[in-house]
């Protein structure tokens, strides 16, 4: 955090100054480690074993915050007797289908609800990263659940969790992670001792955590701990994600993602969203409780914002204009389709996949096989020049005179040359004022896409093709101003906020959304950002003039709420858990919720409210159902539905690992997304032979002085000067073993590529002794490429493409490689080197074995 989010880290130091204990877990000792109380080195890819060890420590010693756990989590809920755990199936849960490598979730359900979920096409859900739609809400569950408030029932979640993690002992943590067990116990003690009524603990991760084949389950394990310890929805608690781009949260909420529409509404698929009603019912699940009951209003209002007057209740608001998914249309599948010649055009908007995405060669060969490419950036990036300056041009795999891709580079406006909002990592929208006009041909994305749309609409204005109606009917009338005809960002923000169609009055809350066409809302979770016709995101009341919650600085979704699920900061009766940690509470005299923040609860619903028999929607939530976006109002220790890879996190080895999984016969995530394409490959891991060809583990991350793929930092003289060269950090022990000299050169080889880097010998990396052997890890920054002021090989070239099954994010924080002293060969000799390794490892194509236990046979039978 001190490296990649230094200014955010000031608050960790502030907390430390007030007595907080800071633990840092990382494969490499960093600036964060230097300032922490305790640093724990960890083997990359083993975090679930560590966190699972903490869960076991809490449960074995009954250190959970019992009142919180009983009231606000599903610990007491009883699970189906059809459920079988990984502990009994050698690393698989019940319901695994070895033909599709997916689970049928039926047996994971709460008891009595086995039929409510039924068969969901799990492979299709994996292909469309369906889990992402739960970013703002949990999956619904039906009816009333059976509970055992004593937590003794053998099939209640609490007991299932306890059995599941029973083997995650301190000794096992040491064997899997390489963390000495006394250090583990120090962490476990500090975390539990600093949680409860009087104290809270926070878990902070950077999004490298998501770049694993079990990335979602990493975060799930953290959530289990924080729920057991009562750290969710309370000040100083939570699971905080440190995201890496100025508005990456905004571009998820208002998604430039294939499987979502704004506000986490799913992009329809052709299989089960044939009609508008099918689509909204799949979101709201009629008859079930929770806030998603209003999904019909959110869906109708979005379509109304898109298609304006053309969208009417009679034509289902032009629902038929929406394109339909049939499977995986994600970035990696798309790139493989480019290589296969199926894609003609590509826009790159401030992203540099030639350096930033996994398997750089696949990215570049894909772009070299397009008809046209449009690059919008501030600088000439590697993804714009792959045809003249790339590793493949050197090796002869791309020949400029034979590469047909037509490339348009359209310069972009910088953040000071346009106005608009960023959503930062805590869901806070901040409006930026424009300082000056962009230079020359540089234009904002707002300008580029508004005018591109305007020109396309002009060209199609006379078309009578049915497919062009969605374009012609589009509401595309943003006012423009100035010499450049810049569209009004405020007008767009007002549409995002939503307005009453008849009067144009901006809406104040998403509860005003209607399903009759009388409201238009571009992104329902952002409703309120333009309340009362005021740009709330532009608020800049000084921190000196308001309290520590700072509710009048910018605007946070939803409803300017700064801590989600903050109903849990009060006890079931609505009283603060302690005076020290009071945040939101029930004011009995006024009959309403109040506090420092906007209560995450219906303002007038008393803690004593119990839903009448058969109540659905919001009325179905009781006065102590703190997790209001969850179908049962509870924080989920156990997830009966909605995850591809199991209801509880389980340690699997990375897709590429030098180690056999010490916990299960099942080596790696049995539901991970793999691609069969000749360009892609996975280095062998046990129990396959030849894993010794790639004996070292490498991991990558950021430097303070550079940003992502380097397009905004290797091009900036000050920053280029501070970190001028690609390097690899190597422990003194490994340097000795390989004969690597400090400041000399080394090259690293995987089944995809070989790259070179300067050697930095440092004890920031330490060999891990685990399971009777030594594992060496090396670290590299992923910022380098061939353009800009400072250049170097791109480490993402070393990675293959294997994805997390829930969200289709690639495993690019851990891989295996070999390391040799000296510089890599160049030209065709470079290809020969990589081919030689592939031959030795027998990487002949095809997918690696997904199931590595014989338990699956029992399951299928």
């Amino acid at each position, binding site marked *: 955090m001190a490296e990649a989010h230094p200014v955010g880290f000031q608050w960790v130091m502030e907390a430390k100054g007030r007595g907080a204990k800071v633990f840092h877990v990382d494969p490499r000792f960093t600036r964060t480690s230097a300032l922490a109380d305790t640093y724990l080195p960890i083997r990359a890819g083993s975090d679930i074993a560590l966190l699972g060890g903490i869960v076991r420590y809490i449960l074995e010693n009954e250190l959970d915050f019992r009142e919180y756990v009983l009231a606000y989590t599903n610990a007491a809920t009883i699970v189906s007797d059809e459920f079988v755990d990984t502990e009994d199936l050698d690393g698989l849960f019940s319901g695994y289908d070895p033909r599709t490598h997916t689970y049928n979730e039926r047996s994971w359900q709460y008891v009595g609800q086995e039929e409510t979920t039924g068969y969901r096409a799990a492979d299709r859900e994996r292909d469309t990263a369906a889990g992402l739609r739960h970013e703002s809400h949990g999956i619904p569950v039906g009816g009333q659940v059976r509970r055992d408030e004593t937590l003794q029932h053998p099939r209640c979640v609490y007991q299932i969790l306890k059995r599941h993690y029973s083997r995650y002992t301190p000794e096992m943590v040491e064997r899997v992670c390489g963390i000495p067990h006394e250090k583990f116990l120090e962490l476990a003690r500090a975390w539990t001792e600093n949680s409860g009524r009087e104290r809270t603990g926070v878990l902070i991760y950077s999004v490298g955590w998501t770049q694993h084949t079990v990335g979602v389950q990493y975060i799930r394990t953290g959530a289990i701990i924080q729920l057991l310890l009562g750290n969710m929805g309370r000040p100083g608690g939570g699971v905080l994600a440190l995201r890496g781009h100025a508005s990456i949260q905004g571009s998820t909420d208002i998604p430039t993602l294939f499987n979502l529409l704004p506000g986490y509404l799913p992009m329809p698929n052709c299989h089960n969203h044939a009609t508008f009603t099918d689509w909204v019912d799949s979101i709201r699940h009629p008859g079930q409780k929770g806030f998603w009951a209003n999904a019909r209003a959110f869906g109708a209002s979005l379509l109304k914002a898109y298609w304006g007057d053309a969208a009417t209740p009679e034509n289902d608001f032009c629902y038929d204009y929406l*394109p339909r998914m049939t499977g995986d249309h994600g970035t990696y599948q798309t790139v493989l389709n480019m290589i296969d010649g199926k894609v003609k055009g590509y826009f790159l908007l401030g992203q540099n996949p030639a350096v930033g995405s996994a398997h750089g060669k696949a990215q570049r060969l894909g772009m070299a096989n397009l008809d046209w490419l449009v690059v919008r950036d501030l600088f000439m990036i590697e993804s714009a020049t792959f045809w003249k300056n790339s590793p493949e041009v050197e090796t002869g795999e791309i020949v400029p005179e034979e590469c047909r891709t037509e490339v348009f580079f359209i310069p972009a406006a910088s953040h000071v040359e346009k106005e608009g909002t960023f959503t930062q990592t805590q869901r806070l929208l901040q409006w930026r004022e424009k300082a000056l006009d962009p230079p020359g041909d540089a234009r904002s994305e707002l300008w580029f896409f508004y005018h591109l749309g305007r020109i396309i609409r002009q060209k199609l204005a006379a078309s009578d093709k049915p497919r062009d109606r969605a374009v012609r009917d589009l509401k595309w009338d943003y006012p423009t101003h100035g010499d450049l005809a810049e569209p009004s960002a405020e007008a767009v923000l007002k549409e995002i906020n939503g307005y009453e169609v008849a009067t144009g009055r901006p809406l104040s809350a998403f509860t005003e959304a209607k399903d009759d066409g009388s409201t238009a809302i571009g992104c329902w979770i952002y409703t309120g950002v333009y309340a009362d016709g005021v740009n709330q995101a532009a608020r800049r009341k000084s921190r000196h003039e308001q309290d520590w919650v700072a509710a009048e600085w910018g605007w946070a979704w939803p409803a300017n709420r700064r801590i989600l699920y903050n109903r849990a900061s009060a006890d079931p009766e609505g009283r603060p858990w302690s005076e020290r940690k009071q945040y939101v509470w029930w004011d009995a005299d006024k009959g309403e919720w109040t506090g420092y923040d906007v209560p995450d609860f219906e303002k007038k619903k008393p803690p004593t409210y119990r839903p009448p028999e058969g109540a659905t929607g919001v009325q179905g939530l009781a006065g102590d159902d703190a997790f209001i976006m969850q179908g049962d109002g509870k924080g989920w220790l156990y997830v009966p539905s909605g995850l591809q890879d199991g209801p509880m996190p389980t340690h699997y080895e990375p897709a590429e690992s030098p180690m056999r999984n010490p916990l299960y016969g099942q080596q790696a995530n049995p539901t991970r997304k793999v691609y069969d394409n000749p360009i892609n490959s996975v280095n062998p891991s046990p129990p396959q032979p030849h894993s010794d060809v790639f004996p070292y583990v490498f991991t990558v991350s950021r430097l303070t002085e550079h940003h992502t793929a380097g397009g905004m930092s290797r091009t900036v003289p000050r920053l280029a000067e501070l970190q001028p060269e690609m390097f690899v950090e190597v422990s003194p022990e490994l340097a000795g073993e390989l004969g690597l000299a400090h400041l000399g050169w080394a090259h690293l080889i995987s089944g995809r590529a070989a790259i070179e880097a300067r050697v930095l010998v440092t004890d920031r990396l330490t060999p891990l002794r685990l399971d009777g052997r030594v594992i060496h890890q090396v670290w590299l920054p992923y910022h380098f490429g061939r353009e800009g002021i400072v250049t170097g090989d791109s480490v993402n070239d070393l990675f293959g493409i294997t994805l997390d099954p829930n969200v289709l994010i690639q495993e690019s924080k851990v891989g295996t490689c070999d390391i040799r002293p000296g510089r890599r060969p160049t030209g065709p000799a470079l290809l020969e080197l990589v081919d030689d390794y592939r031959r030795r490892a027998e990487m002949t194509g095809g997918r690696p074995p997904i199931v590595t236990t014989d338990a699956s046979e029992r399951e299928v039978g």
Partner: protein
Amino acid sequence: MGLKTFIEGWPVYRQLTGTDPLGRGAAAQSARSATLTARTETADSMARSVCPYCAVGCGQRVFVKDGQVTQIEGDPDSPISRGRLCPKGSASKNLVTSPLRETTVRYRRPYATEWEDLDLETAMDMIADRVIAARDETWEDTDDQGRVLNRTLGFASLGGATLDNEENYVIKKLFTALGALQIENQARI
């Protein structure tokens, strides 16, 4: 130089006798620094902005004089950053004024070995034509069972996490109306 002037020239004297006992302001000022003026004081305008790098969202103040950015510094009012910026945020002025910035359209013809110039209006028109053509060539009305698809997989887009919410909104809106599904950004990687 008289004795009084000589003694008053000592910073420590000014520190002990003046209004700056910590010696961090006027007491430490030299004759030369007394003649200097901060760029922030002479700027024509100041815009309140947000750092463009990571997602912490540090407040920035952007100072402009004579149509040039002359200074970018932390916004002390921000409850997030309290006026601080990291090395990248502090280099923001260097980012927006970098000599490497491209400010004209660059065009690479198929099979060409070099860039050439193109005017923006022509480029926009050419891109619009290519989008329409790719869409027409790859359009899918229905699947083989007659179910509605109403889409094109003929072109794709990548990026959005460095852009504004308003920009992401119009990108998604336009692509969806065009039937284009393959829109992705940094959140996927």
